[in-house]
């Protein structure tokens, strides 16, 4: 009998059953793919680092006269289990050419032979690279996309007197140097090619180095010991620092995580809505069955069997869709990280089973109500079960709205619960877009320049080889001369400007028994009061210093304390006058007064030349001048403030890709939810639609009524999302900026046109179109159906 009733039910209530099935497919797809992605993303870095075999501690050193000074130091540390040395040679953009032009690396580069690399390097399809053939070179996918290199193209290395052209045979995912924030790009070649490339002894003796992979349980001991080493170490960090360099990639991954959570929430919301909605349709039938003496348990089983059948069909279809859908989402965020977990399909299957269980649970809870009903109650309650509830809130007689608009507004106010699913779904969808838009705009805006601990300038120009030339004794004099020449050249070319420069020194700082090594910034051509500080006042004298909160905490120091800097000139004491924030080195930075005498031989790097025009040019003129300066200095590495921040953060392309993906997914979800909900409402309101037709309402007026409801809801959601935008952005992205070093928060770049107009209108537009198209079904309902509806 069950089968016969079930067959008839499925046939008779075809529309609602199809809607329910579609919602189950949607929910199953979202839940399966999202949970799989959440697990992939949340364990992404750990899994990736484990697969790659990233060492516990890493040091990049420079070899002097064939000897690496660090090896002696490392040998003294007892806690080291073992270490491996990988030879390398330092390069810069002057050494690498693509199609006759210098390769845009935006960072220092290293060249290594493949067989000496200790960790696993992965190809595009996340497989471990087994080797590099002679005449071939591997480089990171970021460099490949940045320079529009195609696989098979040739790159020419000019190292000293040696020039050799190699074919790009693939892009790699490099766990250690894969992130832009590590500031080093790795090129991997065959051992024999490497040997040929370093044949020029004059060059290689100057720029030879080592990559030291250290395996230990006690990284702090190594850190402490290496901080005493004054020269030879270019860069050293532990595994957690390497991880934190992926913070921007994790921002992208976190976006996927947030999107997954939202999609799961949406899936549950729509499931709950559809099951409660379709069950409400059954009240009368339940009453009839009770009236003729069928037991509660039997009636309950009947509906459970129906929902089980739909749940199984929907979940299986959803399971198959979830695999390509999940992969599509992961692909967009796994350009630098190997993502994906091995037991992927098992998780998808488990999730689909979970969806079936959830549907049955919802159904069980819904049918539980029937126990309380007497047969008469159920029949009287009819399809709504709301007979004695106060409904209308607005009065047509007092309203200035046209009938269609009035009925739409009144429906929402009278039964807000009915629209709760749509409201929550749309709010989640729009909030997701707005958070991402704000994050992307902030990361591309010059508004966050102060959060990087530097000053804002009109133009930034980077020339790594020239900048490296200051890292010598009397480097400051050379810098002064270059800055003077630069100002003169710019003035002669009609661009009067004041130029400045930031030099970085890696210096050991001590406060009491606390010790750490930190990048110390000194401005040339700027004064300390031009920078932004979060607490205290700018250093005004030679013996005053400003620290980031992270360094201050590490040293257990505060404003007013005196710390010691171990410079080549000897130990010097400084009074802390201010706390600032910097996202430049994951929050580690110190700023000394511009008048402090410090030998540039101990400098470890620098930022770009900063150019501030003194004739207040317009934004358009600045863009023109950027092009002029590019020609003047024959370089492409000239940026305006927005482009410079983009070049530092380096994820704008990826975040734009994710923004597009999220937007497409969100708009598809919005359209699907709108269409399915509207179709459900039409099925439910067939009687009212035919009544309105019977009393003379045109199709267009009824379609307007149905469409307007969704437009009003979407507009309300847009307002809610806008009100929640700042707190939600802070909640979702604030911790990430904080991890990057902006402990005092970031001034978000909110573009009113985008967040208040474009994206809300996009959501409302998609809702409008989806509702309007679905509401065309109303045309098929005849006025005479009034006589057929119960």
């Amino acid at each position: 009998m069950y089968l016969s009733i079930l067959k008839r039910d499925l046939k008779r209530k075809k529309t609602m059953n199809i809607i329910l099935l579609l919602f189950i497919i949607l929910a199953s797809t979202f839940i399966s793919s999202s949970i799989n992605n959440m697990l992939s993303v949340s364990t992404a870095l750990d899994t990736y680092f484990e697969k790659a075999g990233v060492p516990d501690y890493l040091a990049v050193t420079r070899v002097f006269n064939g000897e690496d000074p660090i090896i002696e130091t490392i040998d003294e540390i007892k806690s080291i289990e073992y270490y491996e040395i990988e030879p390398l040679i330092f390069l810069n953009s002057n050494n690498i050419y693509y199609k006759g032009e210098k390769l845009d690396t935006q960072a220092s580069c290293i060249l290594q032979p493949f067989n000496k690399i200790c960790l696993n390097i992965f190809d595009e399809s996340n497989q471990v690279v087994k080797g590099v053939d002679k005449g071939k070179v591997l480089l990171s996918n970021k460099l490949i996309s940045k320079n529009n290199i195609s696989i098979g193209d040739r790159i020419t290395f000019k190292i000293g007197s040696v020039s050799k052209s190699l074919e790009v045979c693939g892009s790699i995912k490099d766990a250690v140097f894969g992130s832009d924030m590590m500031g080093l790009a790795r090129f991997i070649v065959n051992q024999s090619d490497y040997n040929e490339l370093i044949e020029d002894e004059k060059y290689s003796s100057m720029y030879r180095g080592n990559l030291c992979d250290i395996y230990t349980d006690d990284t702090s001991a190594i850190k402490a010991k290496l901080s005493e080493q004054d020269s030879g170490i270019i860069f050293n960090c532990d595994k957690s620092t390497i991880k934190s360099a992926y913070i921007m990639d994790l921002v992208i991954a976190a976006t996927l995580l947030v999107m997954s959570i939202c999609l799961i929430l949406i899936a549950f919301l729509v499931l709950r809505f559809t099951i409660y909605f379709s069950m409400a349709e059954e009240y009368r039938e339940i009453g009839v069955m009770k009236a003729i003496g069928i037991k509660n348990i039997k009636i309950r089983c009947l509906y459970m069997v129906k929902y089980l059948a739909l749940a199984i069909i929907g979940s299986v279809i959803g399971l198959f869709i979830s695999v390509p859908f999940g992969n599509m989402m992961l692909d967009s965020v796994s350009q630098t990280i190997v993502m994906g977990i091995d037991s992927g399909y098992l998780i998808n299957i488990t999730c689909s089973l979970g969806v079936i269980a959830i549907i049955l649970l919802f159904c069980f809870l819904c049918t539980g109500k029937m126990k309380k009903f007497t047969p008469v109650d159920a029949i009287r309650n009819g399809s709504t079960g709301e007979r004695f509830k106060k409904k209308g809130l607005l009065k047509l007689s007092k309203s200035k709205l046209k009938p269609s608009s009035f009925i739409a507004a009144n429906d929402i106010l009278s039964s807000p619960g009915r629209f709760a699913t749509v409201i929550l779904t749309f709010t989640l969808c729009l909030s997701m877009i707005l958070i991402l838009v704000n994050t992307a705009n902030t990361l591309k805006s010059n508004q966050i320049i102060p959060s990087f601990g530097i000053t804002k300038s009109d133009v930034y120009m980077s020339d790594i080889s020239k900048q490296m030339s200051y890292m010598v004794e009397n480097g400051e004099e050379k810098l002064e001369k270059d800055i003077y020449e630069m100002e003169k050249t710019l003035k002669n070319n009609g661009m009067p400007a004041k130029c400045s420069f930031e030099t970085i020194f890696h210096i050991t700082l001590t406060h009491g028994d606390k010790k750490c090594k930190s990048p110390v910034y000194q401005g040339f051509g700027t004064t300390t009061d031009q920078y932004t500080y979060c607490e205290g006042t700018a250093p005004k004298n030679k013996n005053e210093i400003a620290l980031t909160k992270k360094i201050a905490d590490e040293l257990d120091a505060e404003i007013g304390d005196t710390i010691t800097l171990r410079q080549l000139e000897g130990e010097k004491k400084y009074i802390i006058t201010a706390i600032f924030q910097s996202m430049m080195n994951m929050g580690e930075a110190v700023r000394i007064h511009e008048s402090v005498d410090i030998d540039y031989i101990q400098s470890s790097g620098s930022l770009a030349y900063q150019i501030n025009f003194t004739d207040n040019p317009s934004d358009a003129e600045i863009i023109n001048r950027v092009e002029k300066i590019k020609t003047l200095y024959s370089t492409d590495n000239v940026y305006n403030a927005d482009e410079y921040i983009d070049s530092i953060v380096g994820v704008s392309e990826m975040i734009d890709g994710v923004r597009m993906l999220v937007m497409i997914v969100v708009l598809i979800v919005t359209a699907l939810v709108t269409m399915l909900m509207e179709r459900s409402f039409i099925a439910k309101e067939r009687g009212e639609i035919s009544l309105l037709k019977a009393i003379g309402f045109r199709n267009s007026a009824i379609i307007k009524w149905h469409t307007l409801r969704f437009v009003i809801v979407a507009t309300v959601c847009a307002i809610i999302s806008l009100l929640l935008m700042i707190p939600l952005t802070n909640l979702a992205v604030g911790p990430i900026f904080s991890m990057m070093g902006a402990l005092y928060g970031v001034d978000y770049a909110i573009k009113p046109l985008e967040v208040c107009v474009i994206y809300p209108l996009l959501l409302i537009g998609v809702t409008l179109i989806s509702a309007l198209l679905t509401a065309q079904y109303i045309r098929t309902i005849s006025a005479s159906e009034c006589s057929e509806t119960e």
Partner: protein
Amino acid sequence: MRNVLEVNNLCKTYITNKRQNNVLKNVNFKVEQGEMVAIMGPSGSGKSTLLYTVSGMDKATAGEVVFDGRNIASLKSSELASIRLDEMGFIFQQMYMLKNLSVLDNIVLPACQSKKNMLSKKEKVEYGMSLMRKLGIIEIADNDINEVSGGQLQRACICRSMINKPQMIFADEPTGALNRTSSDEVMEELRKINADGTTIMLVTHDVKVAAKCTRVMYIVDGNIKGEYNFDRYKSENELRQRERSLNNWLMEMGW
């Protein structure tokens, strides 16, 4: 008297499960202004189909339906909607109203939608209230539809059908869901409306209801088998007599 409705060779065919079902077969009749016509017949004879087809709620398969001089069978659905809104009124067996609106708002809704009704919104509301007052339901004006009785609701439906001052009201078993007292009250209201000049066509199974009309058309198997004409009744006694004679006539027709 001029004809408000003229039906010529009206056919209506439904196709169900690939089978053709001829519900109305060459139906011909005329309704004069001010008439109150009852359509009777056994279940499945095509009464409601006839009502919905001549009122433009359903499309005719063939034939002419001339309403107020226009063949509405050839009109577009939007034009039909305008005619239903401004020139016709409808009452159904089930008291259909929009659940989220108050009784008064349900009544005034067609007036607010009408472009031909030139009254201001305030005047429309006042007219709706005057109709409610006339039908004795003014006290439920602000009530929700689930707070009133079936009889009150059906009277509210009558008010709604009257709001745009239609030429003709179509009613499909208007008393079918009501008890005898409510049924009598509703019919009395319809009779008064008819007496004021509004033409009424209704479908009913109830001899007592049909006896209050001026003409009864008996339909069998999609054809009008016969018609029975009355004058307007003047007393309750006369009504009893009409019921008896109508009953006898219906028996002759095969009722």
